[in-house]
Structures are given as C-alpha cells and as structure tokens.
C-alpha cells in the first residue's frame, strides 16, 4: 500500500511504497555543466577504485555522456520519458502558481499504479539489454563504422559523417535519491538509505539478484554483476564520507570522482536534513546556497519523482526546451543567474575543487573593487573578495580569492611534480 510523501522538487505530495524516513545529513553534489570537457578522468577514478574486477566490466558507476546523442545505458532517459508519456499521454506537465511550480503529471511511482493487467510493479521502469550496457559513449561524438557493419572500424573513418552541432557532456553518478526507485522496487528490502548521510546502499548479503532495482532506477545507476548474481551500485565512496581516509584525520573527504575532476566542475558535500525531510536552513553551506538560495543548480529530471540529490548548473548554450525537460521549470531563472553572477555567487563558484575535504560552511571577506563592467548587457562590479571554507569541525580548510593569482610553471619543470 503506497504512502503519501512530500517531494519538494515537484512541489507536492506523491505516492511512494514506503513512509517518510529521513537521514540527518544528505550526501549531495552540484556539477557545473558549463565546464565539463568530457575528459572521463572521473569515470576512470571510479572504475579503478571500485569496479575493476571480473563481472564488473560493463559497470561504470560514474559515466559522462554526450547529450543529446548518447547515454549509458543507451537511450536510458529517452526510454524512461517515453514510458511516462505512454502512461500519461500529453499530461506530463508543470503548472505555475505564483513563484512556485508543481508537477502535475505522473512520477514513476504514480505511473506504475495505473498499470493494471501487467505483473504488478511498484515502479515504472525497464531492464536495459546487455547491448545497451555494453558500449558506453559508442558513436557519441564520431562515427567509426558504416551502416550494416556494426562494431567495426572503418579505415575511411575520418570521412564518415559527424555531428553538425554539439550539445554538452552530462556527468552522472547515483543521485542517492530521497525517494529511491531502486529501494522502492526491491522485494527483499535489501536496499537501504543510511541515517547518517543518506547514502543508498545494497546489502550484498540480502540481495538475490532479481534486478527489480535495475529496472526501477530511472537513472539506470544500479548494475547487475553476472559473476556473483547480485546487483551493485555507486556507494558514494562512503569510507571517504565517513572520514576514514587517513589524509584528513577523521574529517569527511569528497568522493574519488569529485576530487579527480580536471574541469573543476564538481562540488560535493553534505546538507543537513530536518526530521520532516525538508532541508534545514544552513545559509552558508555552499550546496544549500547554490541550490536553495541562488537557485542556479537544478535536479536532473525532477519529474521522475525520486528527489535526486545530484544538482546541475545547466549549460548556457543548449536549446531551452531540451533543458527544461531535463532540469524542470527553474531553468530560465538558473541560467540568468549564472550568466551574470552576483558578488556572492562568483565567490562561491571559486570553491569548486579547491580542496578534497567537504566544506560545510563558507565565509566571504569583502575585498577591493577591481573594476566595473557590463556583462551580457547588465552592469557588473567585480570585487576581489576572499572566500574561506570550513570543515565539519569548523576548521579552515580552504582560502581563495575571486581574482585568483595565476602562475605558469616554467618549461624546465614541465614534467616534474
């Protein structure tokens, strides 16, 4: 019997197979898609840490796909959107009431309730084929073989067609959702959300490999391991979040994929959660600021209904309609704020990848005015403010400026570390 739970991202209550129960802190992250260069360093950092063993070959807990051409597994988002559209034709819409938006369509949980006649499902989803899992990034940027000759390399590859336009790289990991689809679907209750940090884990002893979670996760971030016959998923590098890495002396440290990021697009942290599931006001937590105050970062496909805890600053140049479907109705406001950032936002953006430790609070010390200018038609003043980040113990872990000094390593030291 489904319960009613509140999902702030869709602005209303929705039905979910379990009653509300919330963690004390929630693992969350904010990726700036304007900066991702698709280098896949994050992907390899994860792979070489957690999924390098036999039976894990097709597993990429972190992946970066070129939108709109690619997806891992192939077409995952198009397929979920299509299933929802078929379940609720023409009605997957957002409504605006004043400043607030409400999603009036059906989430993956609500759409499943309607599916009479089929084997009962708690969550609307599908099981990707082996082929869809097998080739992350295949043909996303370039063609390598000709039609009718799949999985081959054409010697004339450079003459094959290429994209006429390029959208953006979408970096993805498990969203450690507030209302996880994977957890809802598991018939053995083998999936749980941790009280201390909201990380969603699969109990490897309880799991029997039914793959209900694989079908139910709309983001397709649970993967089946054929050698052990059980399912596995991103564990949010929990030993690092617990502070078990000797480098930080007990303080939480960001995950492998975050700290490896070349493009400095990633900021990961923990946000404080109230007993009722709402975010506790924490004005100077960088994630709270970016997501709840500045509202420049948005959830990925909020209409799915899992309340994902991964947030994105959308890429500025991509057609708005595509982005609105992907990030919801907060899009235009977020993009305007990012295009012409205000004084505080510019300073907070400096915190991206300046330290491996998790910053739970920041402080801005006002600096000198550097210049006045016009950014995209709006008057703008740049101040060289200093931003300081603190860890869970209140210790200063990073200090940087808006006008960061820039050093170039002399050629003779090129390859020395």
């Amino acid at each position, binding site marked *: 019997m489904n319960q009613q739970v509140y999902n702030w991202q869709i602005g209303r209550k929705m039905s979910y197979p379990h009653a509300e129960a919330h963690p004390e802190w929630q693992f969350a992250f904010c990726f700036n898609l*304007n900066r991702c260069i698709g280098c896949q360093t994050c992907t390899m950092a994860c792979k070489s840490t957690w999924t390098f063993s036999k039976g894990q070959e097709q597993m990429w807990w972190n992946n970066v796909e070129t939108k709109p051409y690619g997806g891992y597994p192939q077409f995952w988002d198009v397929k979920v959107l299509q299933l929802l559209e078929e379940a609720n034709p023409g009605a997957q819409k957002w409504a605006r009431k004043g400043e607030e938006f409400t999603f009036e369509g059906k989430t993956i949980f609500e759409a499943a309730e309607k599916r009479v006649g089929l084997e009962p499902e708690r969550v609307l989803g599908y099981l990707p084929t082996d082929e869809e899992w097998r080739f992350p990034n295949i043909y996303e940027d370039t063609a390598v073989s000709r039609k009718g000759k799949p999985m081959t390399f054409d010697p004339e590859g450079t003459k094959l067609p290429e994209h006429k336009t390029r959208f953006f790289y979408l970096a993805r990991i498990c969203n450690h959702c507030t209302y996880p689809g994977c957890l809802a679907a598991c018939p053995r209750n083998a999936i749980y959300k941790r009280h201390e940090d909201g990380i969603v884990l699969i109990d490897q002893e309880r799991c029997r490999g039914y793959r209900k979670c694989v079908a139910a996760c709309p983001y397709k971030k649970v993967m089946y391991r054929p050698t052990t016959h059980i399912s596995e998923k991103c564990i949010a590098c929990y030993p690092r979040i617990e502070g078990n890495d000797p480098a930080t002396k007990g303080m939480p440290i960001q995950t492998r994929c975050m700290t490896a990021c070349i493009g400095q697009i990633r900021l990961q942290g923990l946000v404080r959660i109230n007993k009722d599931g709402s975010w506790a006001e924490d004005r100077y937590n960088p994630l709270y600021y970016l997501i709840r105050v500045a509202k420049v970062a948005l959830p990925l496909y909020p209409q799915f209904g899992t309340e994902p805890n991964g947030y994105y600053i959308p890429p500025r140049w991509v057609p708005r309609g595509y982005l609105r479907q992907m990030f919801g109705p907060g899009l235009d406001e977020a993009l305007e704020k990012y295009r012409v950032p205000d004084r505080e936002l510019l300073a907070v953006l400096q915190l991206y990848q300046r330290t491996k430790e998790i910053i739970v609070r920041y402080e801005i010390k006002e600096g*000198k005015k550097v210049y006045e200018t016009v950014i995209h038609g709006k008057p703008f003043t740049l101040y060289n403010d200093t931003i300081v980040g603190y860890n869970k113990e209140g210790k200063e872990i990073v200090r940087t400026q808006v006008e960061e000094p820039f050093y170039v390593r002399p050629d003779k030291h090129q390859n020395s570390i």
Partner: protein
Amino acid sequence: MPKDEYDPEDPLEWVGVEVPVESDENLHEMALTFAEEFLRGGFSEDELLAMFKNPFYVGPHLVWRKKNEAYVRAVIEEAKGMWMPMRTMSGGEEE
C-alpha cells in the same frame, strides 16, 4: 515516438544528425561560454585561440570550422570586453 526513430543496429545512430533547433545563436552562445569560462580561469587570448584551433577539443573546434578565425577572435574579444576590462586599468581601488 515512432518505432523507426532509432535503430540499435545502426552504427551511425545519431551521428551526423542535425538537431532541428540548431541555430547561429546557440553556436555563438556556446563559443562565448567557452571563452568566458576559460578567460575567467586564467587563459590568455592566445591560449584560447589555440584551444579553438585544436581538433581534439571537439566543441570549440566545431565553431572554428563552421565559422572562421575572425569569428572566433570576435567572440574572444566580446568575452574580454566583459570580463577583462581591467587589462586597461591599473590595480584595484578601495571600496
């Protein structure tokens, strides 16, 4: 979505597909985003230009090939005009 819209057997799936919403405006905004982000990150004008010229940076290079050097230079100038007016100023001033 019609059933024949994508074909998993097709190795050229979505490759070379022109998205109907493609426009000069989007291309300009993409080029400008790269220029603004990298200028703010400390790149010089020459380094930026080299990035647009480099075929391994698919996004920026696409702009280079679709347009030309003059176009890319103009985009970089536009970004500089917004974010680097201090090039023509000296030091900071007290608030």
